[in-house]
């Protein structure tokens, strides 16, 4: 088990490195440069600024220099703002972590029960009803849902704010918006997984033997049926933490998602590279955590490893 984890971690390192390399190349292929702005810079000042970030050097030298500083734990300085990238990431990580964590709790809390319920009552009104509710999460874009929640819910409930990031109350609406979309996918995956397990022979046998229905569901069906959902939750968590640009801007959350969009639009090379590294690490950890959870739930997988 330990060796599997270690080898997966090594693979993860390679994945993160390649991800970084690709991002490094792609962002430099974009038209314009970090210093293009509505008020043009005089050539000699532009040159000085490019020199400062070594942008006048060849890409290979730039990459080497970046890796050297990265090895010392320094991600460079953001080109568009005078802040070290590590500081920006450190200060936006907590909000993203809270948002991602609360989002995934809502997603699991809503999605998994909804999926189980509709699988058990397949093609009934309960099935349709829960699935409609769950799917609304994917069918209403977050940029429509979020302002509606802000102006209609937040203004009517005294302790909720339309936007801002202070106490735990402010976590609710953003993570709800974020969690619902994931809940919808999760509900669907759980439903599919449950349907498959419920149709398997051992469940039928258990039912035929007269075992109490609820016990069968909890002890046998859930164990198998939940597997696809867990495999999905790992990477979904990474995406929730970093892919929340819209929710962050609408609810004024100081998280990381905005950096992916803004650093791309403003060609802030170092900031984008920094947040991509974080995203890569999160994906690797998410996948690994999901795998470990799968093994914990289903001991049979342990032998096949």
């Amino acid at each position, binding site marked *: 088990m330990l060796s599997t984890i270690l080898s997966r971690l090594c693979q993860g390192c390679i994945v993160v490195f390649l991800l970084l390399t690709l991002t490094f190349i792609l962002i430099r292929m974009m038209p314009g440069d970090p210093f293009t702005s509505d008020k043009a810079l005089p050539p000699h000042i532009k040159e000085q600024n490019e020199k400062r970030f070594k942008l006048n050097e060849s890409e290979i030298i730039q990459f080497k220099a970046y890796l050297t500083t990265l090895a010392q734990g320094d991600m460079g300085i953001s080109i568009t703002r005078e802040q070290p990238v590590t500081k920006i990431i450190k200060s*936006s990580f907590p909000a993203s972590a809270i948002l991602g964590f609360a989002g995934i709790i809502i997603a699991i809390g809503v999605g998994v029960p909804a999926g189980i319920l509709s699988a058990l009552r397949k093609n009934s009104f309960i099935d349709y009803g829960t699935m409609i509710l769950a799917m609304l999460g994917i069918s209403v874009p977050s940029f429509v849902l979020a*302002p509606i929640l802000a102006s209609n819910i937040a203004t009517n409930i005294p302790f909720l704010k339309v936007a801002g990031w202070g106490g735990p109350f402010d976590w609710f609406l953003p993570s709800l918006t974020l969690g619902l979309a994931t809940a919808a996918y999760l509900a669907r995956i759980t439903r599919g997984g449950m349907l498959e397990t419920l149709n398997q022979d051992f469940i039928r046998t258990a039912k035929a033997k007269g075992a109490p229905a609820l016990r069968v569901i909890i002890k046998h069906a859930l164990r198998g049926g939940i597997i696809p959902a867990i495999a999905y939750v790992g990477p979904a968590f990474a995406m929730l933490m970093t892919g929340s640009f819209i929710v962050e801007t*609408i609810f004024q959350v100081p998280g990381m998602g905005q950096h992916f969009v803004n650093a791309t639009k403003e060609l802030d090379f170092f900031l984008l590279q920094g947040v991509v590294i974080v995203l890569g690490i999160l994906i690797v950890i998410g996948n690994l955590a999901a795998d470990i959870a799968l093994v914990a739930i289903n001991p049979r997988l342990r032998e096949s490893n």
Partner: protein
Amino acid sequence: MTFTRMHSSFTLLTIAILSSLFSSCDKQNHVDEATKDNILIIGNSGEPADLDPQVVTGVLESNIITALFEGLCGQHPSNDGEHLPGAAISWSPNDNFTVWTFKLQPNGKWSDGNPVTTQDFIYSYERILHPKFGAKYASMLYYIKGAEDFNKGTTKDFSNVGVRAIDSHTLEITMRAPIPFLPDLTKHYTWYPVPKHIIEKHGGMVAKNGEWTEAGNLVSNGAFTLSKWVLFDRIECIKNPLYWDSPTVQLEGIHFLPISNAYTEARMFFNNQLHATYTLAPELISYSKKKYPENTKLDTYLGSNFLRLNVTQPQLKSIHLRKALGHAVNSQAIIDNILQGGQEQATGLVPNMGEYQAAKEMFYDPELAKEHLAKSGINPSELKLTLLTTDREGSKVIAEALQDMWRKTLGITINIRQSEWKSYQKAMSDLDYDICTGGWIGDYPDPTTFLDMWKKGDGNNRTGWSSEEYERQLTKAELTEDPLQRIRTLEDAEKVLLGETPIIPIFWYTQCYLKHQSLKGWHPLILNNQPYKFISLEQIATVPEA
């Protein structure tokens, strides 16, 4: 095992929510709360790039920096033309405005107690002009004699630059030409002093690492000083007790919130979380005017919106075609129906300011437009023009309206090409467009802030247009000693520009923003550079209700 961990975290979360239930419940009205504490909360439309006056280039940074730092001259709270003592107690030019002498406040202090001296100013000017520092806005100081050469590295010695310390509190600045508007310039953040002793402690003059502007490190000479800076969340300033004029300062503190989404910002204002904003989305103006008439402010702003025409494009080489396009634009319809912010139809590039009379060259006249089109000899159906636009400030809707106007009046079909911001900028610089939307916000209240950019080879020209006659007029104006005569010459220069129509002025900006009734001493200013020291908060009985 994953489930138990999640379970315990869930319990933790529940406890956290419950425990804060009681503490948060009484903070429903944030604005009233803050007003009681004399704290001003402002929505500041984005996270600042830095708080170093010599690094930043934007308006939103300026909004914070004017609270922290103070230039030689101070801004009057309601009159743009009047200069109050700032870091300087008095100043005087020589006869022809080429040498200015500033007397500094005798008890001017940095917020750590050190005195503000002439050396701080000279150090600051050397820093912003230093070729190694690469300040993006260094050209704002090119009015000083020798500054441009030093910045470009042609002279290495800063003593060649026209700033000189007569004594510890007397500063003499020698200009490259008569500059009667120097007091206006000194109100711009590029001219602010920075604390030499602090910067030397954090890496020295040309180091850029964002260290000295961190909360705790930053030392300022203005009415407020930085107490807290949480990236992308908030910037908190508190009253600076060592400020020379601190009895005037009414507020205990200012909180700037970097709210980049304009709709969120407006929602937060309407939900009583903000005292004021610096922006208001065009789509919300009519709603806000109707529902919150007392809070919606539409003030004249020093900015001009215009179309650039690429004069190197074969068909647009014709001045008649350019004029035809210009006179076919019904700016008033755009203002009334799309912008709705009380903007003024632009008849020229430079808006009225002080003595400067705005040109009256460009106006909506469909018949004249058709006449010009006929004179150009171009068959409308053969025209293949593209209008380049971007996704900001409702410029897409304006582009669609223009497309429709040209189709209706001239029978010209124009395609719209919408690009994201960087590509749009690049296409403009590379002259890879036919017509494009754009605008310019003045840095200081003098016509040259709009006129200098149309010189040949200027990075902001971006039209391919140039004229010897135009540049001759500008040079003549610069050498004119009489301020009024100078303004008249600049007016002539603008007529040359508009006569050849490389640009089509559309409207002069207004600053649309929201302001709470409790806010006193916040008056319309042409650059909206509010001097916070004159602003106060008053408890009001009634609260705007949705």
